[in-house]
């Protein structure tokens, strides 16, 4: 790899300090917050290995969980939505591997109930803010992590129900992969780049780690190759979209590691990362080059660098852990 960790680590340190300096703008301990931003920030804490110092952040997320087990876009919202509930649930189940707090464990059980009760007959979850494929992928990711590291949290019959629900959701996604390896939604994502990057990393590839029941190797390889085929000459994806470039770079890091095809993907990952580093603001990252810093994108940028740090280690499990598919 041509990008060295001694180049990356000072940026991680600096950007983490910046995120902490913005604490009032993302912390639930300071008041009402956008929960997607909160979840992005909690993921940085997890991957920066500072979760144990931030128990109050996780408990504050538990405090604003609704009776049905879900969360809304804002912490003060009263209605629940699937996508943000899944992201919150993922941060709690993964955070509690370190925190071991009974209140968080109870909250995770409520999340399980929420997803079991809200899945549609055809395997999807509906969320008007997201494409159906994205709204399915995130709960399945939560179930992947539950099966990988959280089976002690639920009883046997509930785990059987989770597995049945997981199969339905996985089928919903697998049946919708296009011939070229991508996933598309004509309403939300005609280019298919972000959905493809999300699906293969956040849900589908985990099958190879948690049981290899559905034989997703070919599907994931086609997904990765689709992403490689649409990377721009400058290293970005989707017309210099910082978010989507970070998604693709992270996705290829994980999936190529699990599939054992790193050699095929190393250069694309480096080019993506070089482009991401080139378009940083003084502090944090923007949504597109030249724009002001966006705090959520800054969390994504930090997460990408932290995952690259894991990717640079010789053992595959280092990066698999950063998706929660291994303890």
């Amino acid at each position, binding site marked *: 790899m041509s990008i060295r960790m001694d180049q990356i680590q000072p940026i991680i340190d600096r950007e983490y300090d910046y995120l902490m300096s913005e604490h009032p703008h993302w912390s639930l301990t300071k008041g009402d917050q956008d929960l997607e931003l909160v979840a992005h920030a909690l993921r940085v804490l997890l991957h920066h290995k500072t979760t144990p110092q931030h128990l109050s952040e996780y408990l504050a997320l538990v405090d604003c969980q609704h009776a049905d087990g879900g969360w809304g876009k804002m912490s003060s919202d009263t209605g629940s939505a699937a996508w943000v509930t899944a992201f919150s649930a993922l941060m709690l189940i993964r955070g509690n591997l370190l925190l071991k707090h009974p209140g968080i464990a109870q909250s995770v059980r409520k999340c399980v109930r929420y997803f079991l009760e809200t899945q549609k007959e055809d395997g999807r979850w509906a969320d008007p803010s997201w494409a159906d494929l994205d709204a399915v992928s995130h709960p399945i990711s939560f179930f992947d992590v539950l099966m990988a590291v959280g089976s002690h949290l639920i009883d046997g019959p509930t785990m059987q129900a989770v597995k049945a629900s997981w199969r339905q959701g996985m089928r919903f996604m697998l049946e919708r992969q296009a011939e070229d390896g991508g996933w598309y939604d004509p309403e939300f994502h005609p280019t298919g780049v*972000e959905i493809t990057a999300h699906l293969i990393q956040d849900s589908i590839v985990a099958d190879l780690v948690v049981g290899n029941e559905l034989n997703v190797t070919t599907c994931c390889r086609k997904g990765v190759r689709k992403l490689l085929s649409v990377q721009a000459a400058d290293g970005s994806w989707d017309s210099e979209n910082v978010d989507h470039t970070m998604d693709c770079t992270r996705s290829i890091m994980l999936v190529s590691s699990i599939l054992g095809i790193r050699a095929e993907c190393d250069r694309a990952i480096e080019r993506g990362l070089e482009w991401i580093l080139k378009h940083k603001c003084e502090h944090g990252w923007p*949504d597109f080059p030249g724009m002001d810093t966006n705090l959520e994108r800054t969390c994504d940028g930090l997460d990408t660098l932290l995952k690259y740090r894991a990717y640079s280690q010789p053992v595959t499990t280092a990066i698999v852990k950063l998706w929660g598919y291994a303890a």
Partner: protein
Amino acid sequence: MTFLAKASEIRVGERKLIKVHGVDVAVFRVGDQFYALNNACPHRQGPLIRGTMVESENGKGCSIRCPMHGWKFDLATGDSHGRPGNATVYALTQCGDELHIDI
């Protein structure tokens, strides 16, 4: 009403991002019609000025699709076609070559 831009500065099919009273306003010109929207998508604040123009299926009107997560907004009304929030549209008037908005 606040001065926005000279109409002649925005050619047919073009768009321009203009800051008005500290607010980023995305201005689109479709034919002879001008539209002014708050640049921040109500979903995740994606920049609508970088969005993809989509013609309505019935050939009447246009929408802009946010480049971040694909929400689509009617340029004239800000309607999001069923998503949980609409774009903010500013009333726009043209006086000769001058465009003014209510912001």
